């Protein structure tokens, strides 16, 4: 019986997140358009795009190998699997000890599958896009992981039931540590996470692997029809999930406790409130960032990550760690 409920809940979450993430695509496009003094497309444009792409024929290049068709399916499957470990205002459905590592692996796997698909297509544009995606993937994960694991290590000291899991953030959050050092550290790490998020969803500075005007959509150059639709959905879900990570670390508060709800209504309210917070984070890291910046060169982006973000993550991590290490009494 429990398994049945979990499965139904999982399907519900999948349906809801697909809807919410595609809706965010529409809101983002509209907001950016208004910032640029344009009308912008209708709010539901991503849904129309998705439905149209699904109904269209998918063209497969002659030189493409099997992975070309497999990659989008696997990417969507990965993103669905990711939802089982994503905190969405309540504890993850299948959350367990140490699921953070699985979470990061799955998140990276989507990017990796894009690379596999691009390399399999045999197009030179896609290959350059794949190279760039790999380079930036390697650069952006380091600072983020350092930051995330520092926070989790610090929180697990406070005594949580499932250490190194997403559920940790529902028992304690980073602001609860309370010392001035840890708050400063958390602010620095928030910046690192915002930059990581922008890079993860490839906007503004970090729109490098897809670079429309340089590589004609880069990694996605050869995809069309159903396969492209699957990738689009997987990417939209990935954006939502990545933002959920930032929300759950830095803004984990729910509202159901304050208005005294329990059971299913509490879950629904928390889910909606979480979605709102995700949209707010994405607004800063995606829409605003996209409106006020252009694309960097790949070497500049990599330099940014290794010489700015990594030191920032180290500084933030040290600030967080200092209390425990007892350097400052």
């Amino acid at each position, binding site marked *: 019986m429990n398994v049945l409920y979990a499965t139904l809940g999982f399907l519900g979450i999948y349906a809801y997140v697909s809807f919410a993430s595609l809706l965010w695509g529409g809101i983002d496009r509209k907001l950016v358009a208004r910032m640029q003094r344009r009308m912008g497309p209708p709010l539901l444009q991503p849904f129309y795009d998705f439905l149209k792409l699904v109904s269209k024929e998918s063209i497969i290049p002659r030189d493409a190998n099997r992975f070309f068709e497999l990659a989008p399916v696997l990417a969507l499957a990965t993103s669905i699997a990711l939802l089982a470990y994503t905190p969405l205002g309540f504890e993850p459905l299948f959350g367990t000890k140490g699921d953070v590592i699985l979470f990061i692996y799955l998140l990276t796997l989507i990017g990796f599958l894009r690379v596999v698909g691009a390399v399999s297509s045999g197009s*030179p544009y896609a*290959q350059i896009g794949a*190279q760039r995606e790999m380079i930036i993937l390697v650069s952006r994960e380091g600072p983020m992981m350092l930051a995330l694991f520092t926070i989790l290590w610090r929180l697990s000291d406070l005594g949580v039931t499932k250490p190194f899991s997403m559920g940790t953030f529902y028992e304690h959050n980073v602001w609860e540590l309370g010392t001035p050092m840890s708050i400063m550290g958390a602010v620095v790490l928030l910046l690192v996470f915002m930059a990581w998020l922008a890079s993860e969803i490839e906007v503004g500075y970090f729109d*490098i692997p897809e670079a*429309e*005007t340089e590589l004609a959509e880069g990694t996605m150059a050869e995809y069309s029809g159903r396969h492209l639709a699957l990738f689009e959905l997987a990417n939209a879900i990935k954006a939502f999930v990545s933002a959920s990570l930032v929300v759950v670390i830095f803004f984990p508060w729910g509202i159901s406790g304050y208005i005294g709800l329990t059971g299913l209504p509490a879950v629904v309210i928390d889910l909606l409130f979480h979605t709102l917070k995700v949209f707010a984070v994405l607004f800063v890291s995606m829409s605003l960032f996209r409106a006020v910046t252009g694309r960097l*060169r790949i070497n500049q982006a990599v330099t940014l990550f290794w010489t700015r973000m990594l030191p920032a993550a180290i500084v933030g991590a040290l600030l967080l760690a200092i209390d425990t290490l007892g350097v400052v009494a």
Partner: protein
Amino acid sequence: MNGKLEYWVKIPIGPIHPALEEPEKFIITLDGERIINVDVKLGYNLRGLEWIAMRRNYIQILYLAERICGICSFSHNHTYSRAVEEMAGIEVPERAEYIRVIIGELERIHSHLLNLGVVGHTIGYDTTLHLSWLARERVMDILEAIGGNRVNYSINTIGGVRRDLEEKHIRAILDMIENYRNEVMPKIEEIFLYDPTVEARLRDAGVIPKRIAIEYSAQGPTARGSGVKKDVRYNEKLSVYPDLGVKPITPKEFTGVVKGDVFDRMVVRVGELWQSMELIERAIDQMPEGKIKAVPKDNTLLFQLKKAEGEGIGRYEAPRGELIHYVMAQKGKDVPAKWKMREPTFPNLFAIARALVGEQVADVPVAIASIDPCLSCTDRVAVVDANTGRKKVLTERDLLRLSIEKTRELNPNVRAKPEVVGVGCPRGGVL
């Protein structure tokens, strides 16, 4: 070294590519992200304008010249007029010259704003595109009010201009300049001169050193961005420009250094926006009263041109650089024997192809956009054998045969006998 060859990747930028507005092909050989060779292939957009002109009289060619390019339509038209005027010895009234200056500078403003936006777009900074194109609408509206059209305003004619500037137009122009000075230009400067993203992407991209600019005969903002003081309006003392105090703009006056990169070209464009506004104001101040056409009636003009003999060259500084039109007259006919133009894009294209070697693939679109390529006006006939790479000269008969073969290849249903002779081609050897 030979072993390394197989790692090199050749990617085609074009003929159809999101960064190029017009069909043109750049074959780029890459070693990783570094460019080791750029090959430019022209000829995808040949429209045979010179051939079409052989069947039109001097006045009709004016409207054809305008359609060479949509952005510098006035420049082409104006340059052609200057060529014919020189050939036939027609004196242009002074007021007409001032009106030409005003329209020409308005066009320069709109062309530069367009290019600034395009460069912003190619680095993924779409907000700049929407800002500068929004500002551009105002100039376009004024050009529409004066000429009747947003793009091909056909204001020019041989020996003058077709429309006079009225009081309300002048007021509108001055209003626009006021608005640009106070609201648009500070924003444009803020974005293109001081924005960190723009600076990071445009500095040291597509560098054309001064020596290369001179060797490849780069034109316009491309040359001036490399520090070459080259401006037809200034060097040739063109029409009334010396009275208006025109000077070639180099980035030195704005940033103090000349590097010859994309950023410098943008700086030159921003500087020329300021300069154009000043020129328009001075031209409006100094504009004398008088007639606006040397020969009021087109019929009289055509008759006069029919008697003309010899050849004429018109030069003008189009927004993209020096534009040259050459016209050769046929005595007793109202069609020219030869009409030929040289656009600034042609030399600039090879200068930029040379400059791209050694840079990153990310710089290709922005570097190409920075010379403001107008490929539709650059394309000419060039036959290259794709397999051997050998060039050869084709006669008219060969071209016809090739086109018939191509038609049959594309559409096997055409079963008519190939007629090599007499397919609407003028006989008599004017080609």
